[in-house]
């Protein structure tokens, strides 16, 4: 955007229909520009053009994904609606968790900014999702972060990962939000395109739900929080809708937003006090597309009109043009709709928290969004045409020709280690591999204790947060995705991501009730990518229907690719569960010697896409493990019942690395050893197969009979593997007739991988 001396008003736009406008530089296609002219019956003013371009970008309009995302709504059943208080389409979904309490949660991406500027990109990603949760009327209570970067030994990973982790920590720690889980995954496909997905959980009472709607003509529009600056201008349309190669044109220089978590902390406390005083009738956070998005969405959702006096917006940089003010993505801002008689009390609360608030306009019944600048009209549009009725594309999709070859190249045919010594070395190698090793280099940079309600946090299977100190009610959350499985079969792979997150929540003792997803894919203009996307959404929607838990919201991130090479398709799934009493949660670690150790579920020869295939053979091909959601439900029923009856000392989900890695993690958590005999399978399969619907549990021997009853009641196979033995220096993993592995040796291998690669990086 260049600064002009002449203001392009609505009147001028009407008088000068033939002025050439830079619609293409703003990311609009020619038919989209024609559509805008048809809607307005004239050419758009430059401010209107800015608004349409940013709101019709892929990031804001979901124009390529919308036709597929409808599946989530269409597959809802009455059972799935039962707990759903607010569904897809609002800032975040809200589910009932009992006792009049509700929980809102959502996961969102901030991928491209985090590659350009890892610290600020990740930090503002956290800030954005926290404001979404806050805007629902909820107090934010926990964060999770799901990170994917290039290979650990790549030079750029040592720039990106430490920056991203410091950014997630720097922002989240300063907000006083415990970070209780997430993932860190290394894969070459993310080298030029890291994924930074952040999930926030908030708690509110049913009657506290707030919506992003402007209604009631005469109500005031208040902008509060940070002043508007020049950061992030065009961030949405540029960063989220084109690849970096295309971004060198001068008008499209990417600019990452800069966060101020202290301001956001004040904004949280101030907003909660405003809700508490019932001073807000509608609210929207300012995120992607800033004022363009907030004004048009509020007016469109409320079925109303709005008049804004743009020159009242407090600025950090007075040289900003109206177009830039409309597009700015300056952080830590909110917009509230307030009844006229509440404006003074509203301003008083803001003043108490030192938060600047400005009355910039009013709700009207005109059905038009009009914006004035220094007495002249610069925007006059139907708000729905900006916010909700953007273009929708049925992109061509096509199963890539190479997919058959990939699917037929099965890992089950790879050479397998023979004796105990080789298996022992393989267990060690996997435990020390970047994707399975100790995560504490990352997670120790996050405050997991603040607020004093964290019952379980990483490296546990799910983060568990107490939400009611009186009753002990709590929620459990896990995010998961094995993108290699999605690459091998997007439909099944998305279901496997769902199944894993569901299982992680259930083994912690909570009943899964809702889903959020962050769908990270390559370019939607590539039919092969679009096929992956469509298949993944179909798989996820079908899977949710079978598990009877609704998708309540989420985010799509396209154009995650370097040149023509897309990332592994990565639909990250977050599952939320509820537990009546957090004292009954089940942790992953063996608690002491003398407990019986069982494997629940069935193990098959399923090694394609496994960690073993990748770490040992650098191989990816074949079919991912079979999906059996009925078995997942049965396992979850056993785990939830067992937790409620306090049968179990520990429970750990089996996923990447199979039984071997589950044993490693359950032993190392508290330094308790185990002696087991493998069931009569090929030992390689028994240790490293990644068959689904399985868990490793330990329990006092007095409870074995009851566990057997529960398993038989729900049809879950159970196999007694052995017992926990030994603590301290003598503890080891002893696999009868094959090998033994002292925990000290194992811990040394497992815990040094990340520090040795990243310290002093």
């Amino acid at each position, binding site marked *: 955007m260049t600064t002009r001396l002449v203001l392009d008003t609505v009147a001028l736009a009407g008088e000068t229909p033939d002025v050439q406008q830079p619609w293409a530089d703003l990311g609009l296609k020619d038919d989209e520009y024609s559509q805008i002219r048809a809607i307005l019956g004239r050419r758009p003013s430059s401010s209107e053009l800015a608004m349409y371009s940013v709101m019709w970008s892929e990031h804001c309009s979901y124009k390529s994904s919308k036709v597929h995302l409808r599946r989530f709504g269409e597959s809802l059943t009455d059972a799935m609606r039962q707990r759903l208080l607010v569904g897809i389409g609002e800032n975040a979904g809200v589910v009932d968790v009992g006792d009049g309490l509700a929980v809102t949660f959502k996961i969102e991406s901030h991928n491209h900014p985090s590659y350009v500027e890892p610290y600020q990109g990740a930090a503002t990603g956290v800030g954005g999702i926290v404001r979404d949760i806050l805007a629902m009327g909820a107090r934010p209570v926990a964060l999770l972060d799901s990170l994917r970067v290039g290979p650990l030994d790549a030079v750029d990973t040592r720039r990106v990962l430490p920056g991203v982790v*410091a950014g997630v*920590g*720097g922002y989240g*720690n*300063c*907000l*006083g939000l415990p970070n209780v889980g997430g993932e860190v995954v290394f894969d070459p496909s993310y080298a030029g395109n890291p994924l930074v997905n952040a999930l926030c959980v908030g708690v509110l009472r049913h009657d506290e739900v707030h919506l992003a709607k402007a209604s009631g003509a005469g109500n005031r529009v208040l902008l509060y929080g940070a002043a508007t600056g020049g950061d992030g201008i065009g961030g949405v349309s540029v960063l989220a809708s084109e690849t970096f190669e295309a971004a060198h044109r001068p008008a499209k220089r990417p600019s990452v937003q800069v966060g*101020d*978590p*202290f*301001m956001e*902390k*004040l904004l949280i406390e101030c907003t909660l006090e405003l809700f508490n005083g019932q001073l807000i009738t509608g609210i929207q956070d300012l995120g992607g597309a800033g004022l363009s998005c907030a004004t048009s969405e509020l007016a469109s959702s409320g079925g109303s009109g709005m008049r804004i006096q743009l020159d009242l917006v407090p600025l950090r940089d007075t040289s900003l043009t109206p177009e830039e003010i409309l597009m700015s993505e300056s952080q830590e801002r909110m917009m509230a709709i307030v009844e006229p008689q509440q404006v003074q009390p509203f301003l008083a609360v803001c003043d108490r*928290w*030192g938060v600047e608030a400005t009355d910039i306009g009013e709700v009207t019944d005109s059905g038009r969004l009009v914006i004035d600048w220094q007495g002249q009209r610069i925007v006059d549009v139907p708000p729905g045409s900006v916010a909700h009725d953007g273009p929708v594309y049925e992109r061509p999709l096509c199963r890539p020709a190479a997919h058959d070859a990939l699917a037929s190249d099965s890992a089950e045919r790879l050479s397998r280690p023979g004796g105990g010594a080789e298996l022992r070395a393989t267990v060690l190698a996997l435990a020390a591999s970047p994707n399975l090793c100790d995560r*504490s280099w990352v*997670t*120790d*940079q*996050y*405050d*997991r*204790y*603040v*607020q*004093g*309600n*964290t*019952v379980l946090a990483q490296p546990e299977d799910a983060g568990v947060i*107490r939400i009611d100190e009186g009753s002990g009610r709590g929620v459990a959350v896990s995010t998961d995705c094995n993108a290699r499985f999605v690459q091998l079969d997007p439909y099944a792979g998305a279901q496997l991501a769902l199944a894993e997150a569901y299982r992680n929540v259930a083994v912690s003792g909570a009943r899964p009730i809702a889903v959020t997803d962050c769908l990270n894919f390559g370019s939607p203009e590539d039919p092969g990518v679009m096929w992956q996307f469509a298949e993944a959404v179909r798989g996820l929607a079908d899977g949710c229907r079978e598990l009877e838990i609704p998708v309540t919201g989420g985010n799509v991130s396209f154009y995650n690719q370097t040149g023509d090479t897309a990332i592994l398709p990565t639909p990250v799934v977050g599952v939320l569960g509820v537990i009546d009493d*957090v*004292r009954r949660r089940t942790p992953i670690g063996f608690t002491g010697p003398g407990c019986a150790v069982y494997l629940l579920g069935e193990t098959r020869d399923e090694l394609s896409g496994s960690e073993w295939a990748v770490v040992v053979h650098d191989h990816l091909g074949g079919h991912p493990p079979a999906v059996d959601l009925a078995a997942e439900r049965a396992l979850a029923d056993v785990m939830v019942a067992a937790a409620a009856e306090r049968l179990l000392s520990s429970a750990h989900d089996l996923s990447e690395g199979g039984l071997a890695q589950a044993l490693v993690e359950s032993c190392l958590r508290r330094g308790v050893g185990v002696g087991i005999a493998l069931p009569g399978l090929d030992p390689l399969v028994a240790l490293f197969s990644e068959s689904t619907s399985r868990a490793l549990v330990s329990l006092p021997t007095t409870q074995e009979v009851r566990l057997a009853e529960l398993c038989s009641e729900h049809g879950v196979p159970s196999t007694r593997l052995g017992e926990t033995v030994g603590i301290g220096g003598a503890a080891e993993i002893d696999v009868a007739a094959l090998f033994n592995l002292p925990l000290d040796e194992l811990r040394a291998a497992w815990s040094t991988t990340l520090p040795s690669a990243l310290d002093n990086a």
Partner: protein
Amino acid sequence: MRVGVVTFPGSLDDVDARRAVRLAGADAVPLWHGTDELAGVDAVVLPGGFSYGDYLRCGAIARFSPVMGAVTSAARRGMPVLGICNGFQILCESNLLPGALVRNDSRRFVCRDQGLRIENTATAWTSAYTLREEVTLVLKNGEGGYVANAATLQRLEDEGRVVARYLGDNPNGSMREIAGICNERGNVVGLMPHPEHAVNDLCGPGTDGSRFFTSVLSAVVAA
């Protein structure tokens, strides 16, 4: 018994500190940074967080808040004051305690369960511990490295004013592994780790932190 917990803009562990005070059996009284009224409290906790966004320097702005004027005079008269993490930084900035806290030597924020040795049980906040007792609290800070000049360190050691020291690897580069110190009188204690996060078995590493809060109750009763 009334224990005040100050909320500055950017305080984060104020809710946790109030919970710890209540669990110890006292009334937790919220104190607002913008007032110099201490509401008749018997003791004050300055909680962790990022008061005023840590702008300028941790604790540097909080020192000038109205409430700190009142806390500083009360502390000089003998009122028990515990500064935790950011609260410790504020006490140093307020010259109620000597030395300063600087960025961790690792240059990274660290959050972990941390072993400590209690080395002074004569303070208002540690009388319920036994001398040289080893406890586990939560440590979480970005700027927790305790530094002071040689003369100050020597004086702290000579006068037995090191209240707690880190066990094992030094987590943040603190001189002489110092995790907490007190003033000459023993009523003002600054501690980098967080006792308020270790007051129940469910949501922290055990209950080793509780006695900071029960200690002060006896101190106030005895006073």
